[in-house]
């Protein structure tokens, strides 16, 4: 097999796994958008906040330590113990649920029946607020996150491909894990939304608030539920991205990479988020591979956005989104 083709195959595989990472972030957007029609600008920050909290719990950091020190002149910073990951993750999940309750209580509840654009603005505010709180609570330095997921080159894939082609593919084990976890996540979310009472209620609320109330669905409960799930998905994304590149404030910017994914997959489709992520991942890698000799590197920075623009031109509802039909 010619080397060029092998390299392209490797790039494709790497693109697929990178795409899964994008899809993980996009998933959180889709969930909230489906359930409340809100484009949640804070999803990226939610992932950052979840990752910060997880690291904080793991390393036994005292939340708001800096603030406490400034006010009371103390010099505390750590509890002096490390929380095992199996405890830290459920604890973080609890924090995310608490956050969902607070978001409902202090933001959504007061914005019932408002235009989507107003809710969108509220999420921008929430994003900045959370970023600030995350900073005060856990500090701004870059932290390493290790939840025991394997990292580095996957020996199995390397051996296998070497045996087949005489050339070993480099695949990051972490990204393989991410793919597996994303698959489980999507499967359980799909089952939840299609087969359970709460899932049906969630879809109902997304469609029509009044009608939902009239069949006995509590809007507040559904909103807390949606934001909790979005928080948990954000935690998963935060763990994956945090393990890959450290927990740092630029993590909140991965939300931007999710935008083209959403435009491709459609804002309302969970499978769309996955497929969109994969297309962007693969597209990026292959475009870079073939075009680098011609137009130079760093195409990964803009390729996704360009692809999204092309999609907006020809298929604005995305691949799997609901077709927009205006009846007059």
């Amino acid at each position, binding site marked *: 097999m010619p080397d060029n083709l092998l390299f392209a195959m490797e790039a494709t595989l790497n693109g697929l796994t990178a795409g899964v990472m994008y899809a993980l972030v996009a998933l959180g957007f889709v969930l909230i958008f489906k359930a409340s029609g809100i484009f949640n600008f804070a999803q990226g920050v939610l992932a950052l906040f979840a990752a910060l909290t997880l690291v904080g719990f793991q390393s036994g950091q005292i939340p708001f330590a800096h603030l406490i020190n400034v006010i009371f002149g103390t010099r505390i910073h750590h509890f002096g113990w490390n929380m095992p990951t199996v405890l830290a993750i459920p604890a973080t999940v609890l924090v995310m649920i608490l956050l969902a309750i607070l978001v409902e209580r202090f933001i959504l509840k007061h914005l019932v029946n408002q235009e989507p654009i107003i809710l969108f603005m509220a999420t921008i505010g929430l994003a900045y607020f959370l970023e600030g709180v995350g900073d005060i609570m856990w500090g701004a330095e870059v932290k390493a996150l290790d939840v025991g997921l394997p990292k580095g080159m996957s020996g199995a894939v390397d051996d296998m491909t070497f045996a087949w082609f005489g050339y070993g593919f480099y695949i990051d084990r972490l990204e393989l894990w991410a793919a597996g976890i994303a698959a489980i996540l999507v499967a359980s979310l799909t089952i939840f939304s299609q087969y*359970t009472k709460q899932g049906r209620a969630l*879809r109902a609320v997304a469609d*029509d608030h*009044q*009608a*939902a109330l009239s069949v*006995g*669905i*509590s809007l507040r409960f559904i909103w807390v539920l949606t934001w909790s799930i979005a928080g948990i998905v954000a935690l998963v994304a935060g763990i994956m991205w945090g393990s890959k590149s450290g927990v740092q404030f630029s993590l909140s910017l991965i939300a931007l990479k999710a935008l083209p994914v959403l435009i491709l997959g459609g804002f309302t489709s969970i499978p769309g988020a996955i497929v969109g992520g994969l297309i962007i991942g693969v597209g990026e890698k292959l475009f870079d591979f073939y075009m680098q000799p011609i137009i130079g590197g760093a195409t990964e920075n803009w390729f996704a956005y360009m692809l999204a623009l092309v999609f907006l031109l020809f298929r604005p509802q995305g691949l799997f989104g609901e077709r927009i039909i205006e009846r007059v």
Partner: protein
Amino acid sequence: MLDTQSDEGYVTADGRKIGGVAMEMKNITLRFGGVIAIKDISFDIRWGEVRAIIGPNGAGKSSMLNVISGFYHPQEGEVIYKGYRRPKMRPYQVARTGIARTFQNIALFEGMSVLDNIMTGRLHHMKANLLQQALWWGKANREEQENREKVEKIIDFLEIQHIRKTPVARLPYGLKKRVELARALAAEPSILLLDEPMAGMNVEEKEDMCRFILDVNDEFGTTTVLIEHDMGVVMDLSDRVVVMDYGRKIGDGTPEEVRNNEEVIKAYLGVAHD
């Protein structure tokens, strides 16, 4: 003349037995800022009857229905339901006490199929926990089958088998109204509230809807409260009628009584002011 005021209920002209009081509205007053939408209105709804609320535009009919279904909370007065004074409840809580409704301008889940829409009517009849439902296991399986059976029965009854898998957004207006009725019925309500079930329909659709409302009442004995503009329809359908005008109650009784009420005639036909 029927004695419609007896505590034990009464028997209608066509021989249906109407029971005691299901719900009583006592001195309801509802204000929006300075505007009085409902002014000190009292009336009752009896088990098994078809009770109509009529009146000119802006009379406060829909507001009244919204008070019953908990979407509005009156500043004064109380709602006695099944013999107890109802505390201030949110609309979804009221729905769970067995009061189902339809809306004047149709509130359906447009993105879902007809079947899914009607199934939402049964949401609070499902008791299995999340895990059981997700895994289709134990109680969940049995429940889903029972609920599906009930829903299928209603689909049969309202003659919408042919559209059961169709997304609601694609249906014509008349059928949407029928699906909304089906969803309300799926909850097996004690009291069914219909806000202008025939508004915007053609004659044929109106006749169908009339037939369904009467059949539902016959078959399931569902107590029905409806708002309607079409006087002919109201007179044919209802056992007793409340007439409202400018937020006040100006008449209450059987269709004949109401038809001959001076004030009602004035409100509807207008009267020369001299």
